[in-house]
Each structure stands twice: as C-alpha cells, then as structure tokens.
C-alpha cells in the first residue's frame, strides 16, 4: 500500500512516498506507522484514502492510496 506524505511530515518519513504492508483498516495502519515512525504520534494530520478525506476508521481496500496531510500555516 502506497502512502503519500506532505508538508512537514516529510521530515519524519524522509521521503514523499513510502510503501507499507497492506493494513486491514485505518486504525491498524496508523498503529503500524506510529510504531515505525514514533514522531508521528505528536503530529496533527488528516488522512485521505483514495483521495477522499476520512473522519473515522474504515476498512482499507487492497492497494489503497493513502495520503497523510498536515495543516499548513504559512502565508
């Protein structure tokens, strides 16, 4: 499953795209990511599954495209 990261989150992941093992749902994916990248726990970000922002735990289709999106404040 491919994960796109934006903004300051790229400092944690060191890249804009990472591949991870398929997860059953968003919660499992989040836990897996926080285990691998503990700094993520402190960060605020929205999650999109197949280019749609989600607000609760949903099951993830196989090979879903995930995006992690922090708020930007610069202007």
């Amino acid at each position, binding site marked *: 499953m491919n994960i*796109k990261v934006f903004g300051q989150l790229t400092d944690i992941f060191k890249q804009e795209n990472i591949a991870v093992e398929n997860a059953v749902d968003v919660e499992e994916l989040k836990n897996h990511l926080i285990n691998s990248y503990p700094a993520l726990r402190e960060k605020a970000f929205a999650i*999109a599954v197949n280019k749609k*922002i989600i*607000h609760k735990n949903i099951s993830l289709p196989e090979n879903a495209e995930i*995006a992690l999106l*922090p*708020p930007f*404040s*610069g*202007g």
Partner: protein
Amino acid sequence: MKDNERYSRQVSLKELGETGQKKLASAKILIVGAGGLGCPALLFLAAAGVGCIGIADDDLVSLSNLQRQVLFSSKDVGKSKVFVATEKIKELNPYVKVISHPERLTTENALDVIKDYDIVIDGTDNFPSKYLINDACVLLGKTLICGSVSKFEGQVAVFNVADKKNVKCNYRDLFPQPPEEKILNCAEEGVLGVTTGIIGTMQANEAIKLLTGIGEPLINQLLIFNSLNNHSYILEITENNESYQLPSNESEFRQTDYDWVCALATGIEEIDATQLRTIIEENETLFIDVREVEEMPEVNFKHQRIPLSDFRNQIENISADKIVCFCQTGKRSLDAARILFEKFGETKKVYSLKNGVLSLHD
C-alpha cells in the same frame, strides 16, 4: 463599462465575455492578510476588474517581506501594508473600489468586516486567524478561499459553497481543531516568493471562476501543489460534524478565544501568577507592560512599558532572549507576544501572563 480596452483580453475569452466581466465588476472580495498570498491575489483581482476589494492587515512592511510580497517596494519599509497596498491598487486600476481595514481580524470586529463581502480570501499566516476567519465565514455563509504554504508546498481550498449534492464543507471538516504541536510558519522554516505567488494566484483564480461561473472551482476539495516537482494532488473533503463544534451564533463567536485555542500552536506560552513569580526571581527576563501609559494598577517588579498601540515600532532593539508580556486581562499581552514571536521566531522565548495584572492582586 468605462474602460473597455482595459479588459479586452479577458472579455474576448468566450467563457468569460461581457457577462463575466460584469459579474467581476459587481463583486466584493475581502482579502485578509496582505502578505505572500494576499499580494498576488490582490494584484490579479484588481487587474481583472473586481469591483470592490477590501484589504485587512494590521502589519507594517518589513524588509524581509519584499522577497515575496510583490506589492511593496524598498521605500515602503515601515509603512502600513494596507495603506501601501491601497495606493498601489488604485494606481493599477482606478475603477476598483478599495476598502482599507488596517486591523487584525478579531472576534470583536470580524463579523462586521466580513458581512459586507461576497468572498473572503484567507491569506493569513497563523492558525488563530485561519480558524477565526473560517468560523466567521460559516456563521455568515460567506464563500471562503483558503490558501497556505509550507516550504515548497501549498494548499488551496474553497469552502462554504454548496456542491452538486448541496453539501457545504469548511476548514474544520479538514482539520477539526487547531494543532496542539507547533507548526512552523514562513518566518521560521523559510519560503520562496514564487511558492506563495503561485498559491495566492491560484486563490485569485478560484475567486474569478466562482464569480463568473466558469471551470471547476475547488469546492469541497483541497489542492496540494509541490513547486519542486510540480505535482498536484486533489483531495475530496467530506462533512465531519462529529469532531468539532462551531460557534452557533454571533455572541458565541465573540466569546470564543481563538488565541487561547491556538496559543500552543504558535509557540507562545501562557503563564499564571505563580509561574510569573518564579520567573521574576530568575532575574534574567525582560518584562513588558503592554498597557497604555496611563493604565493602572502599577506592578511592583522591574519592567518596561511598551503600549500595544506602538508595540511594533519599539521592539526592534529588544535584546533579551526571554520576554514576558503582560496587560490588564491577558488578551493584549497575547497579541504582543504574537508580534514578538512573528518577529523573532524561535530565537526568543516569549510568555504571556494569563488573566493579566488583575490575576496578581487576588
């Protein structure tokens, strides 16, 4: 139309035409923040013939602004951004009615300022303003075009406009609450002028599309643009009614403390009377009373008085690395702390006394 030749290149676009031009001429747009995003948006909207443009900003032009805030020249440093922007826009297009709002939008004035406009363009650079403007636009049912940048990336979105399913989303459907951790702004992490230029221009483009009814505005969508690799990513935003509560009326809005909800996010620390006494004993901190000169009661520890009304002009020479601002109730000191933080970023530690001098005499 008094000035046909001026708009001839865009009127000849069949999608826009005379009809579109008339719609632009009768539109009223408020631009909040005459900075890296606001300057290009202002220039293009005024050039395109938007009939009435409001500009809200309380800041002065500084030298470090000129690299991206393209309305301003070297000779403008130290002048009011709104004043200079208004003059420049009048020179560019005298048919545009420009309304100056030389103030920061607050819970006190935001609704009164915004209510007269059709579209609000958010070009601010901090979360307190972004949440405050969002909530005010939801309350008043105004179209909001958000923009923001982080290093080489930018975000643009259009809110409070019904999509085909009659759904209206707002910024809180994307990010329900202000982040608790600190998010860096341009002053701290750096930004290229072209990046804010692109995003501010995209905001102007969305406004023109919405007003003239052409193309596909980013309604309930978020565009993320990366200027390093030119990748664009568009996400669909859906309603998220469970994770946040908006002020439901004017008086609730006026009572919401946006500075407090965002204080952590901007790196300013609020301290109480007990913490203040500890810091006083440490003896290495500059204490600034930001109340006006005649305001009482006096405090009994060593301090300087720099009234908030003249604060920006007097902070150039502050050399202390640790600063505590205080006022009567803790509101103005938070404004002052924010000004210091905007200017000095992480290089100084800035505190604001919560509940102000009045909390010291209990």
